[in-house]
């Protein structure tokens, strides 16, 4: 059904009861014969009825306004939240940065401390009469600071471990070639009963210091102080500096 101004005015007149009696009769006859027209009349009747309820319409309009306001407020608070998140991120980045910076500086100062206390374990003279030649080469290389050679010789065979000072040589060689963990393992193999135990502890403490593991280092230093041996003096100085 084509919607024309004429048709609409007829329907409106009919609904508003402003048509003449004759017109009403004619229109009702038309409606009865035309289902589409009937539907159109019903539709418009309902439209008029619903939209003449101004209160509900106003209420709906109010809801739309409120909805828009709530949305705006929420997106605003989301924006604020976003700003807060950005601010918090910056603070965290600064914090982590400072922490890292401090740590790096600390690590620097620890390695300075390590450098000022570390001297390689001195090579001892080999007791003559043993299978001297092989030992001599290793000790010579160790004294000269050819640590890679010492490592490769000493790790070739396990027979050297019978001489515990070689454990210290190997550990020191590792320590001088950037293999701190291997050094630690090596120092730890020297038993409590060994006369090299105190020295091994000292180098353990220094290795932990080099790694920035201050707590472990301090514990070992205390052990050395209690042992009351030749490393006590150095240990006390170092622990004092660590406290500072």
């Amino acid at each position, binding site marked *: 059904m084509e919607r024309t101004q004429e048709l609409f005015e007829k329907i409106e007149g009919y609904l508003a009861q402003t048509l003449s009696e004759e017109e009403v009769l004619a229109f009702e006859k038309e409606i009865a014969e035309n289902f589409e027209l009937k539907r159109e009349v019903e*539709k418009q009747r309902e439209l008029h009825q619903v*939209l003449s309820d101004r*209160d*509900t319409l*106003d*209420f*709906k309009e109010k*809801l739309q306004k409120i909805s828009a306001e709530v949305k705006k407020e929420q997106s605003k608070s989301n924006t604020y939240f976003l700003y807060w998140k950005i601010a918090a991120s910056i603070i965290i980045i600064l914090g982590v940065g400072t922490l890292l910076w401090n740590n790096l500086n600390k690590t620097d100062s620890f390695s300075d401390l390590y450098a000022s206390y570390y001297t390689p374990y001195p090579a001892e003279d080999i007791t003559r009469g043993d299978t001297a030649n092989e030992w001599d080469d290793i000790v010579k290389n160790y004294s000269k600071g050819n640590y890679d050679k010492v490592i490769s010789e000493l790790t070739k065979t396990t027979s050297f471990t019978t001489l515990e000072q070689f454990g210290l040589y190997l550990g020191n060689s590792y320590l001088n070639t950037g293999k701190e963990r291997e050094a630690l393992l090596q120092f730890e193999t020297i038993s409590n009963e060994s006369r090299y135990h105190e020295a091994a502890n000292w180098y353990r403490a220094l290795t932990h210091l080099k790694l920035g593991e201050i707590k472990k280092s301090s514990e070992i230093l205390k052990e050395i102080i209690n042992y009351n041996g030749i490393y006590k003096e150095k240990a006390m100085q170092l622990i004092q500096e660590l406290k500072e």
Partner: protein
Amino acid sequence: MSNPKEREILEGIAAGDTLVIKAFYKKNYNYIRGYILQNSGDEEDAEDVFQDALIVMYQKLRSDTLDINVSIRTYFYAICKNIWRSRLRKKRKLIFDNELIEVDEQLEASIIEDIEKKEREHLYRKYFLRLSDACKEVLSLVFAGNTMKEIARITGYAEGYARKKKFECKKSLLDKIEKDPIYQELKIISEKES
């Protein structure tokens, strides 16, 4: 409804109190939005359902036919869910959510009846409010029962132009309503009935 706070909310809604309605909106919208988004709806659906449910409550309050013995929230959520269920059905979508209706049957039945009756009304209002200001003005005057002469005087249009304007606005409104998928579905249902 003996709880004074709940009573205050209902009175606020009935009176169209912006502050009360806004507080209610803020408190409950996200739940309904979440529910509708989870059940194949979009943002616009959520907003429509929420507002139309409030209108159902508003009209019931005004006609003094609101009889609830549960909390407003429970009642309101039941209306929202029923409206959405009814619309989804019209959109011919399946619902896999068993939790869809969670109120007692008696309450549900009375709400559903209201909802089905009001579905077309919601569409009329929705599209009417989307018309241009000029159209809204002219049609409001028409629906308020003014004669064309009066409308011409109020709007300052010539009477002939006011008539033409009225026709164009109403035609465009009806065309838009009929294009809505929910309306299409309602039409099919009412054709079957008649």
